[in-house]
């Protein structure tokens, strides 16, 4: 029997906020595929609401079930410090993904590198529209990964392409209508707008509608993907989307959680025995991102991917 094998009934939980969001679907598929490969049980848990107290409650309820480990997307980092530490004390190991709680004792953190995404997007924009043009961003203040994608791109532009001019910066909070309105206004104020960077797909849908209506020629780039923006990419209305490798995130997330729960497999060359921490510590795993363009768009149809698969 391989050591990479679960005991019967050994269960791993993936806990998220806004649990009906389609982003989690491929992540959980990856999580499940890894678990099946190793004969482990999985549970998808969390709260449907955008509510930190509810997510903490669901996390604490997960502990009642005595799982071997939890792959957690903490909605906010600091409020989870205490619950994560309590979980680890009670013998449930925790790995974070997509958002972190760095001050806690979680064993590992797996995510896509938002800075790398932003750098890639900036270079692509400059490549397409030149290094002295006007660009705008939509944003979603308060959600850290979206924030990072936007602020990093702006900072990168300022540093490397000082002639790129940021002419619009609007908060649209993933709301299609708000994005429509904001983009229409930005277009009004800036007829020479050449490119727009959007850190998520919901706003991109509104932005593309506004740009099509105004018959403007604006390069749209966004992160994440939805069926609608995918169609727009195929039609050439959206230039390109950067999508985190969700499946890898889930798959590697499971493995990291499994490892955290089985520290006895490993005797590393360090001080873990005296300091008492889990030897499976991994500060950061990058799951990478995919670049979606007209050419490869067909491979990113989530509805097609999910055909015949169980979302739970």
């Amino acid at each position, binding site marked *: 029997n391989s050591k990479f094998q679960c005991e019967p009934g050994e269960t791993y939980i993936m806990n998220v906020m806004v649990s*009906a*969001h*389609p982003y989690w*679907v491929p992540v959980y598929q990856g999580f499940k595929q890894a678990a099946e490969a190793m004969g482990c049980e999985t549970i998808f848990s969390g709260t*449907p609401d955008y509510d930190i107290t509810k997510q903490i409650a669901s996390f604490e309820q997960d502990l009642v079930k005595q799982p071997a480990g939890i792959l957690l997307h903490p909605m906010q980092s600091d409020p989870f410090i205490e619950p994560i530490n309590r979980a680890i004390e009670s013998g449930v190991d925790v790995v974070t993904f997509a958002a972190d709680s760095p001050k806690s004792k979680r064993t590992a953190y797996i995510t896509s590198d938002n800075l790398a995404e932003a750098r890639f997007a900036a270079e692509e924009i400059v490549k397409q529209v030149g290094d002295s043009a006007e660009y705008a961003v939509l*944003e979603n*203040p308060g959600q850290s990964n979206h924030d990072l994608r936007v602020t990093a791109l702006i900072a990168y532009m300022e540093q490397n392409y000082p002639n790129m001019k940021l*002419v*619009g*910066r*609007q*908060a649209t909070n993933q*709301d*299609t*209508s*708000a994005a*429509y*309105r*904001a983009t*229409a*206004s*930005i*277009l*009004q*104020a800036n007829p020479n707008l050449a490119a727009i960077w959007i850190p998520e797909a*919901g706003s991109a*849908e*509104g932005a593309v*509608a*506004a740009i*099509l*209506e*105004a018959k403007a020629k604006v390069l749209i780039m966004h992160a994440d993907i*939805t*069926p*609608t923006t*995918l*169609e727009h990419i195929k*039609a050439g209305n959206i230039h390109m989307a950067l999508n985190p490798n969700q499946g890898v995130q889930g798959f590697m997330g499971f493995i990291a959680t499994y490892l955290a729960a089985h520290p006895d497999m490993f005797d590393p060359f360090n001080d873990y025995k005296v300091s008492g921490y889990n030897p499976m510590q991994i500060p950061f795993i990058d799951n990478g991102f995919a670049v979606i363009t007209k050419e490869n768009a067909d491979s990113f149809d*989530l*509805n097609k991917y*999910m055909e015949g698969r169980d*979302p739970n």
Partner: protein
Amino acid sequence: MRTYGAEETGAAQRKPAGIAGALRQMLGMREVGLIAIILLLFIVMSFASPYFLTWVNMRAMAMAFAVEGIVVVGMTILLISGGIDLSVGSVTALAMVIAGLLFLAGFDPWTASAISILACLAIGAAMGFFVTRIGLHHFIVSLAVMVIARGICLLGTGGRPLGLYTLPPEFKFIGQGSLGVVPVVIVIFVVVVIAFDFMLRKTTMFRKVFYTGSNEKAAAYSGIRTKKVVFLTTTLCSGLCGVAGIIYMARFGSAQPTFGMGMELNVIAAAVIGGASLSGGVGTIFGAILGAILLSVVSSSLALLDVSVYWQDIIRGSILLAAVTIDHFINKRRKQRV
């Protein structure tokens, strides 16, 4: 709930003759304060930004509130009858989702839309049933329906937006086309507003809505079937959400299960700014639409001026507060004068 200031009804007033008379009548309208505030905003903005008073910008601003405006119409009528509906956002999303799923299942988009609007009417009727037959409060019933309808959206789509790229162009025309220079969306919106504004002022059917909302007992004593009235206004409001959902679908070419979260507060705020009372009996479509315009113009203007996101909320809230305060005072003076 409470209003300290009294408001008047939307009852049409007899017209005095002549231009002076017409002017006086206009100055006597409840909406004059709101119109003044919106004009002021327009004047300030056209100095602040050279792009503001362009046709394209006006068109974009109108597009931004036109569809939600249809929901505002339904909400206003419901508020006048003494009800309230928190489920408008979810039901609008549900209309998209139902029509989208049916379309993907092979129905032609018109049939799919018709079925979807019928489903919304059925949801409204169910809410009306719980309110009028069981005796629960609109607030709690529509809150439950808000949650349930959102759940159905998620269940139907797995939380993923439905891409409806294959919608035929004549259907997309509803949401994206233009009649001459005027977008179809705006035409539909204007027709809906004028029709309901007229009906609410002039028809016996809708006057009963005012009576019911103003004093349900008095209306019932006068032989009006107040429960039927409330049932119908509740149903109508959901039906108009259905219509709005279909237009959004045609416009965005997709059905979004998470669409319209928080829409209810915006819609109710528009109606209240426009003079509708949360305790029923008072309100006009015209005023409510002005309220919606005010909210939308403020948002669009802040975006046009590229105000820092961190300041936008503060400015938006303050303008809202200032506008209702000014409107309140203008209204008070006007009443004294007339």
